[in-house]
């Protein structure tokens, strides 16, 4: 699978006009993290001198985004693999610079991709407290311990953009329920260690 189309590699050559290597580095990082919807504003902000007009700027941003994402997707880790993505006539120094920048950032980007992948709502925090029920409308004096568990759950990050929705769910468990739950969790742990030891 080709990483980019020829036109996209051509767009990348605009980077030759960049003021410094750090500027290129910064741009790569921003392009990787940016969702396609935000290319326009990013292009205007970050590449004023690099491209002839707004369209070319957006093409550059898009090409950088696709290149970095492609490397992360394929899990390339060696310089040779990344270098081989570029076409024959691509500017040598630019090719080396881009490869170096990508290699520097690859593990951070990989973690970012993994953290933002789709999933069920995720647990972000949990708290508990143990109460003793001393009285109720059905029985005036008793001493029954009970557990209140609060789970903070965050909805799918991709759906929420920059404003993750965190909901708090408070659940009450009796001692019997807790014992059953621990039994289940223990079974999960045993299975996990069986899988890990294979």
């Amino acid at each position, binding site marked *: 699978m080709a990483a980019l189309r020829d036109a996209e590699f051509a767009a990348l050559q605009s980077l030759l006009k960049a003021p410094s290597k750090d500027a290129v580095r910064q741009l790569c990082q921003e392009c990787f993290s940016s969702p396609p919807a935000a290319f326009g504003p990013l292009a205007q902000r970050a590449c004023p001198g690099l491209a002839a007009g707004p369209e070319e700027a957006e093409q550059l941003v898009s090409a950088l985004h696709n290149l970095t994402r492609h490397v992360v997707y394929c*899990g390339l880790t060696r310089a040779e693999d990344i270098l081989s993505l570029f076409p024959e006539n691509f500017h040598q120094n630019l090719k080396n610079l881009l490869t170096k920048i990508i290699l520097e950032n690859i593990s951070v980007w990989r973690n970012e991709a993994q953290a933002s992948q789709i999933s069920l709502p995720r647990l972000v925090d949990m708290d508990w407290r*143990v109460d003793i029920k001393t009285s*109720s409308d*059905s029985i005036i004096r008793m001493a029954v311990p009970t557990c209140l568990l609060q789970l903070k759950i965050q909805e799918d990050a991709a759906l929420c953009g920059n404003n993750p929705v965190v909901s708090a769910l408070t659940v009450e468990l009796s001692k019997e329920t807790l014992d059953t739950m*621990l039994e289940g969790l223990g079974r999960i742990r045993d*299975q996990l260690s069986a899988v890990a030891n294979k």
Partner: protein
Amino acid sequence: SQQFSALTEVLFRFLTEPKEVERFLAQLSDFATMNKISLGPLKNIVKSILLVPNGALKRNLSSEQVKADFIALGLSEEKASYFAEQWKVNSPTLTRLAVGQTLMINQLIDMEWKFGVTAGSSELEKVGSIFLQLKLVIKKGSQLENVYVELTLPQFYSFLHEMERVKTSLESFS
């Protein structure tokens, strides 16, 4: 007095299984026919009698106190003793039922789980990370609600650790 013990038996069977309303009513009507009493007055008497154990349960009365209450209400010593005996035998079950009826907020009813490996995603061709998914069934008011949560492996181990601490805490208060 045989009649009384039969009636008491019917009463206690209902108290220990309060959901068996139809069975209770059927047994009452059998009792009425067998002893040639009409059902209406019998039901009224039973209603009044049931007030005593229900009040006793609320206030954690001992069997002597229940017996004293019945005698104060005009029951013979023999019958009151019999009832108090039955009370002593049944009170652990009855107490447990009363505690069970106590308000619980968002009670956890059930937990299902699955875990597996994420093989790939649209961002990463090969992943190989372990995920754990829990489905918690929670009773909100009278309805059941399902809550789905995903945990990473470190989160799971810390969850397990915390739950074990809760268990130790609950046990020390029992």
